[in-house]
């Protein structure tokens, strides 16, 4: 028999079993890590038309409230992207003092679009598939879920990118544990405060504001023991 197989063949079963096991483990781990919205979706940062819109400058440095532009967030499913005329409220030529005017290279595309009455093709960053119906912004804002919880620290983003995975599991995490994210409707757009407050609450649970605590308690007392978790709440 020794003629047929060399000696090193004795190790073959062990080695091949090891390789197979390793391959399996890496396949599982690889799928777990890479084949998820956490990997593919988070960090999506498309280039916006013209000079883009600098959230860090407008809502961070200048302190504009989110609702100055996203006006319908409390009334409708959609949190609307502002119309060109909203931009022109400040950026009409000669309206801002020369030292504050960003100049034609940054806002020229707005003035052009306005003059032509054409829309600016903003590229959508946060996208949900069609079968999810709509994400009801108005209900979430009303329940005191901050913009921060889904969109991240927008006031620190010169260019907006997707900060969370927006996967169904991620939605359900919050609907099952609303106490981790509800800050109360009055301060939903105060993103800097929200970030610190939520970090603080993670360290010392049960430290919610009275307004938020009332909503959290009501949600826990409801049949769903949290936000709605039935399929029909989102899929139709």
């Amino acid at each position, binding site marked *: 028999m020794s003629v047929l197989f060399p000696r090193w063949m004795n190790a073959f079963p062990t080695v091949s079993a090891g390789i197979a096991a390793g391959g399996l483990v890496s396949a599982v781990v690889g799928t777990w890590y890479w084949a998820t919205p956490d990997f593919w979706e988070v960090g999506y940062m498309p280039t916006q038309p013209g000079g883009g819109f600098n959230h860090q400058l407008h809502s961070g440095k200048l302190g504009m409230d989110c609702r100055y532009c996203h006006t319908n967030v409390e009334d*409708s499913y959609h949190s609307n992207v502002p119309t060109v005329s909203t931009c022109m409220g400040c950026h009409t030529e000669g309206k801002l003092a020369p030292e504050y005017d960003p100049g034609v290279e940054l806002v020229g595309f707005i003035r052009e679009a306005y003059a*032509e009455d054409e829309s*600016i093709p903003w590229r959508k960053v946060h996208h949900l598939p069609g079968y999810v119906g709509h994400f009801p912004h108005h*209900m979430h804002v009303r329940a005191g879920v901050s913009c921060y919880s889904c969109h991240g620290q927008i006031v620190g983003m010169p260019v907006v990118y997707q900060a969370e995975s927006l996967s169904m599991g991620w939605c359900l995490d919050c609907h099952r544990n609303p106490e981790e994210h509800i800050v109360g409707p009055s301060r939903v757009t105060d993103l800097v405060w929200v970030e610190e407050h939520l970090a603080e609450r993670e360290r010392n649970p049960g430290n919610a504001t009275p307004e938020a605590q009332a909503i959290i308690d009501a949600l826990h007392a409801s049949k769903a023991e949290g936000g709605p978790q*039935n399929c029909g709440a989102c899929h*139709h």
Partner: protein
Amino acid sequence: MSSLDQCPSTKGKKDPKADPASSVNGNSPQGKAMWRSLDEFAGSGEFQPFLEREFPSGASELLKSSRRTFMQIMGGAVALAGAATLPGCRRPDHKIMTYSREVPEEVIPGKPLFYASAMPLPGGGAEGVLVRSNVGRPTFVEGNPRHSVSQGSSSSWSIASILSLYDPDRLKQPVFRTAEQERDATWDDFRAWSAGHFAEFDATNGQGLVILADQMTSPTRDAVRDRLRARWPLAQFIAYDPTGRDNKVNGLRLAFGQPHGELLSLENADVIVSVDADPTRYESASLKNSRGFGAARRLDSTSDTMCRIYAAECNYTPLGGMADHREVVAPSRLPVVVVEIAKRVLAATGADVDLLRRLNAWDARGGSPVSVEWLDAVAEDLVEAGGRGVLIAGQTLPAEAHALVAAVNRALGAVDTTVSYVPLDPEAAKDGVGEIAELVGGMRRGRVKTCVVLNCNPCYDLPTELGFEEAFKAVSNRIVLSEGPSETAAHATWQLNAATYLESWGDVAAADGGVSTIQPLIAPLYDGALSEIELLALIAAERDPAEFDVQPAGYDLVRDVWAGRFDWSDFETNWKRTLQNGFAAGTGSSGTEGISNASVLYRNTAELLGNLRPGAEPTDGALDVVVTINNMYDGRYANLPWLQELPQFGTMVCWDNPALMSPRTAERFGLTPDPYEVKIPKAQMATITVDGRSVDMPVWIMPGMAENTVVLTQGYGRRVCGVVGTGVGFDVQPIRDTSGTRVYTNATVSPAQGKYPISSTQNHWSMESRTSIVRTADLPAYQKHGDEKVKKKDSYGESWKIGFGEMLGELAHTPPNISIYENPYNESQADAAEGSWYSERPQWGVSIDLSLCMGCGACTVACQSENNIPSVGKTEVRKGREMTWLRVDRYFTGDPYSSGSEGPGQLYHQPVACVHCENAPCETVCPVNATVHGPTGLNYMVYNRCIGTRYCANNCPYKVRRFNFFDYGVKRINGGYRDEIPEGTPKPNNINLIPPRLREKLAEIQKMKMNPDVTVRSRGVMEKCTYCIQRINAARYEAKLQDLENIPDGFFQSACHSACATGAIVFGDILDESSRVAKAKKDGRDYALLGYLNTRPRTTYKVAIGNPNPKLREPVVDPFHHHDSHGGDSHGGDSHGGDSGSAEAAGASFLDPFKKNSDDGYAVSLRVLGAATGVHA
């Protein structure tokens, strides 16, 4: 009956198939069997396997494919997959396009707006509508609750009108044609040409100018027309209706001396006698009449009363199908019925001696077609009801009979309670077809220089014998304004694209004279399309042509007319209020001028009697032919797939208009269609000839029709139409004569070469031969037992209580199935029990009253529109693949081969959609949890989880789940019967009718129709009724925004509820004590379809109650025959009359003041809130 479900006590005792008298579907109160087709009635051996298959054989297969074609397809698919997946790795780039400088303030993206408008009905009249607009796109049409005709409901025409807006086949720009060439033009070209051309008529006073238009009751169009006539007195403006509806108008003009219209108020009626009348369909007041029927017929408690309906007719109509006593009479003998009734009524009331004398002397030319007992009973009932009785005659009757009907109603004292005679504009009463007939000769001889055709299609819809098409070609300038391609537009020298009523300003008067504004929801989709009034104004050169570019001229035209017409002190405020409400307050008359002098009416009628000559009873060699209309009207709706695919009333045929005959007549001529045997049957072709004019058509049988009578339907066989409508069905115009009448006698029928495939859904979605599907009873039975709760006990000691409705089904003698599976959501057997998931408001449910459903199908179309449900085409329907979530099952009763009391009697209609079982059989078999239950009692369907195993559809006892065998939702509908037309069939092939696999994708414009709140489903996905979950969620959010603790009743409605004109379908929160659905379910008539399977459906039905005249048929007072046949003791413990009187009286009819006020509660509803009224600021 499958043996599993069979009552243990009947097992082995009785085979229902052997005894047709005990039908599986249910029994009429007389014990007549219920059946859906002749094959089901006969219970033939071959038919059973057909029913038991969920789909006919071959339905799940791709095509007739060989290995070779399979390889071709798969090869292509693999290549495409490679090419398609690579770019798929990149994230698709979605754009957000916002408004720019011009921002409509009232638009909030995500919130629909509702605008009040009106849809002009074909042939005159209007329907008040609310149109939903999603960010500027009209997507749904529903009834305006404050409009006097629609009263919140809508017809399938208005619902489907949204499709004609987005029809990709619409004309898109003007086209100029000469004999040599055809070229695309612009509206500017036309304006330049027309300014010069029409000025030439000033010299001749308009000699040689003819304008043809559709009958339309528009004050502004009338005003523009009058101005045109003032400028060119010799020009002819002819409005016509090609469907032969002149008889009633002519009759009433003769009777009163002045043109009058008939306006019914059926809600006041106790006795309705219909002689071939069809007041609830295709008429200007149809919705009002359906509402009235619903109010007169509905029962809210055992102390309530209902009207009684008699009908004598040649074919089933919705009203006749609901009749308590129905007689079948050949069309030529129908006048005799009117005269016989008139004789008896006048004798009993003593209204006019002279008329009575003439009636008695009248020559009936043969015996009475109905029995003397029937006539006596009808007349006696009518006289007893007096002012609350009404006699209605249909368009098949001659004008003189209509005059006589008016005299009878006057003698009864019914005028102004159940019927009013409203003065009619003499223009609207003109005989347009007659005027055209006179004109044709002149056209041929070249006396007409210019012919303008406004939104009508005379080259197709007029009788061929008139020869209009040839004459039209002889006119040198042919200007045709049309929304879509048509036979007339194809011959035009100037083919102009018209704006639909959703794109233009206008106004229109409803049947009661109430005037509505039509306001545009969207700018014309194609190159400055004009409406009728705008084109007329352009022709008359009333305005500078340049103005039409900038300003919607229609607005000015309408406003000017209204400013002259209404003496409003503050025009601006009233105008705006009119636009907001959709109609002008204070318009609409119920006046009865002309009838005050009854003796004139009687005298006129008596004189007319001499002209009333009935034909002889039709025979084998001399048949009667009736030309009727259906949803296609005169063919103008042929390109709307929803209407083509809506199963037609009675026959359940889609995509065709076969000639209808009674089973015996068809048998005698050897024209009976193939029987249903696994394969789908084909119809025989026949030649139908009248006076040498003939058509070749397939023949379909319709039980309950008069013998030796053929019913034809116009509006099919369009030669030039869009891809959907071209070549669908057969054109019957060749058989009509120049008078355009509906009834012809002395016809002959002979078999012709070939067979023709017909798609009928009558045997689709069979409920596996389960029992007691439709339950019926007579009024006295309901009055006696309706409030009883019967205690039942089974041998295991379990006891339960059941009401009247359940006593008519299995639960009367067998205990409900108990699930051994512990449903986590149910902690009790009772609905929405304390402590269960279902105890928290809201809990959604539906109640459907089978007494009120007439089978019009508006709910099906509304559901299709709201939920983005695709049409699939004729061949696909034949394979049982229709996608409509809501079907309306139709059941015949009686013996199709007999006549009289044994023959076909009442029709029963049962709308069936997903019933949302609390113990849903579909949920337990889904391997991927794609269908699960929600806390509000909804059975969810999660499309993205579905992998298409179809187990759920298999396990659904109601057969309400629909499967996307192909990408129907994103492909254009082109029908599909190209391969199946046999050689020698005289039928033009429609090359566009192609199988779904090969269909093109939806045009961009068609996608605009889609409801953005509902997913468009793709291939391989199961779907079904969701109770309009998108509306539920929107209402849930809106209620929270308004800090409402609960969603109030009427805050929103499901699409089917909002469309239903008779009020049969009621949707709402069953835990809300004050809601209409909770009250409806409390009634003793409530029963759960297949409830003994312990599915606990949320949609329940109410027993259909009949109100027979004891003189004609003794009502069945104790209908529990099934129970009695067991002797009652085998199950033990039965005790009748346990808790009587538990059902509370739940308000009165829809139209009474109390109810009307509560309906005004819609003022806080979503659709009004969403409207630009500033309520929700």
